[in-house]
């Protein structure tokens, strides 16, 4: 099985310029991955569980304020600080560049969560439950995580696996952007994004849309001060975690100057 497997290195590009903060990706993710409902209680207990979340920042002083949105999901770092500290190998780096979480092994030391600079790992404090009428909407391809373990964004690995089976095993074609698009194989958030601010692809695929962003960012390390051709950058590059998620700077048509601004 593994023998004739085409090797991928999955990656995502997030264009902040296109993000409107509509939270469609969050909802899609919740639905796709059987994430327990974030009820009022969980918010009050400060134990919200959002594999992808919209960070919102206010720029300027009221009334001259602008909202800024950044979708944050697991960055699938190549140097992931969360991986080596797990005593159980419950999280490790697989050969497709994914930072995978093996629920079965996790005992819930929460060390990985403490050690994640991006705050994208989540702990199940309670046993997950859904109202009776929602039981049937659970996604059969995704485990329902029990309490006491850590979980996080998987780049919807279940879709990728299905894609590999359908495309690569059956028709033998390489799993490229079109295939992902056509078969609805990309992560749920990517498909849900109305402004298509999220782009998903294979870094090893020469024709992938995301390819040149990655090439650019990989070529230009933060510390060596030459300009980058694209708007691409990584979150917290100084920590040197080398994420597989790239962000594109916002281009502000109307910078927030003194006095003016949209109220």
């Amino acid at each position, binding site marked *: 099985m593994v023998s004739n497997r085409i090797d991928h290195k999955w990656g995502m590009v997030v264009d902040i310029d296109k993000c409107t903060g509509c939270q469609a990706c969050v909802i899609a993710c919740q639905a796709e991955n059987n994430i327990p409902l974030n009820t009022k209680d969980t918010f009050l207990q400060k134990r*919200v569980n959002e594999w992808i979340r919209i960070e919102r920042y206010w720029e300027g002083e009221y009334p001259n304020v602008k909202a800024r949105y950044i979708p944050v999901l697991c960055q699938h770092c190549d140097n992931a600080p969360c991986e*080596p*500290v797990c005593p159980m*190998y419950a999280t490790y780096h697989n050969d497709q560049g994914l930072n995978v979480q093996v629920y079965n092994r996790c005992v*819930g030391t929460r060390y990985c*969560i403490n050690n994640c600079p991006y705050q994208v790992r989540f702990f199940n404090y309670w046993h997950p439950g859904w109202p009776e009428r929602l039981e049937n909407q659970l996604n059969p391809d995704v485990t329902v995580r*029990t309490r006491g373990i850590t979980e996080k964004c998987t780049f919807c690995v279940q879709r990728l696996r299905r894609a590999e089976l359908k495309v690569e095993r059956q028709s033998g074609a390489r799993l490229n952007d079109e295939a992902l698009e056509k078969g609805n194989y990309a992560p749920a958030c990517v498909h849900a994004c109305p402004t298509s601010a999220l782009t998903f692809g294979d870094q090893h695929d020469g024709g992938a849309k995301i390819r040149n962003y990655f090439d650019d960012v990989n070529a230009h390390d933060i510390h060596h001060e030459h300009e980058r051709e694209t708007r691409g950058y990584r979150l*917290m590059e100084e920590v040197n975690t080398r994420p597989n998620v790239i962000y594109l700077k916002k281009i502000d048509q109307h910078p927030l100057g003194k006095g003016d601004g949209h109220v």
Partner: protein
Amino acid sequence: MQEGRVLPAEQVNRDLLRSILETPKWFWPVVGILGLIVLIAAILIGYMINRGLGITGLNRPIFWGFFITNFVFWIGISHAGVMLSAILRLAKAEWRRPATRAAEVLTIFSLMTAMIMPIIHTGRPWRILYWAFPYDFARGIWPNVRTPLIWDPSAILTYLTSSTLFVLIALVPDFAVLRDRTTGISHRIYGLLAMGWEGNARQWKLQIIAGVLLSALILPVFVSVHSIVSWDFGMAVAAKSWHSTIFAPYFVVGAVHSGVSAVAFVLILLRWMYGWQDYIRHEHIDGLGRLLVVVATGWFYFFVMEVIFGIYGREADEIAVRSLQFIQEPFQAWTIIFIVTTYFIPVALWLTRRARRNLWIMSLACISVNIGMWLERYLIIVPGLANRTAFTFSWNSYVPSVYEAIIVGATFAFVSMLLLLFSRVFPLIPLYDIKEGDILKNESVKIGRRVVPAVFRED
């Protein structure tokens, strides 16, 4: 520093075995109360395992709270034992004699208590076997050697095993004494434990060598244990102010500080409970006090280093943690209490001979040190996690739930109960060590009119 008179062996036996051969009135009631507290805590733990960690006050981003703080604290206490008995044995300090075993036993029990903490604080404690022990069942899973959470069990179990053996080896001659003083079933048990010890020259020689050799071997272990515990935090890059190179020695010295104070307190308690005035004398507590002044100052040096180099980097988020610790509510108040109770109050007291020889003041000072050291761990762990990172998503603070508070409180009852029960079956003061001291003591050096007490030294 050899005061006190030389006692005949019968009296030493009588006094020091009193805790075993006869039961004081208060004994069972006290043990009962402590046991009740422990039972309540056990029930709560069961409830927590049943319902899940949701019942604690933990949240995002404070995923480690009271339990881990308590874990580090008890590990710290456990460092008293070997610190005292090993270093003082190696230094051949005469005043160590009554202190050693109590210290070692405190080590063992506080280690056991400490080990409970990380286990119950995991999400799925019933799977803990997967974590600590290297084994390969069908699924080919091995523990990940790269994590401090594997270094921890290896170090702690090593430490527990070695200090237990340390105590047992030293207990053999005293078992023989008990064997000769008891009858019936207990006679048989003690006889079994004494392994037919008869106290001939060879046995004694090896007993003495074993004491020194094992001390020398356990010291490096004891240093490594708390260093590794500190690396649970030091290895984490995400939580600013944890990733500091000085953590290992800083934690170790802190542990010795709190541990030695704890031992001093326990000794005072024993003296009071069993009337061991002739054995735990003021000079011993005094010696501990002097030692503590040095340890405390060393600890303060490391503390200052840690803070200075925290600011040294001038990285925004590390500065933020420091301001969280030292300036912002609620932590800054705790920080002030912590610094004062850990260093300034006790050291100021220990500097005067009169205070060192006043048992009340000494016990107060020691308690204050341990309050401070508990706070220290809390103030390292929680602000480090509560630090407001770039992501507003996880800007939270932490308030422990009542369950956590009770369980943490009960650990103290647990340790005291274990100590009491131990003192019921084993002598808490090594008889032969006291007797040896008395033998070596009967010589003095006369200088002019002054007679200076002296000891024979084999080296």
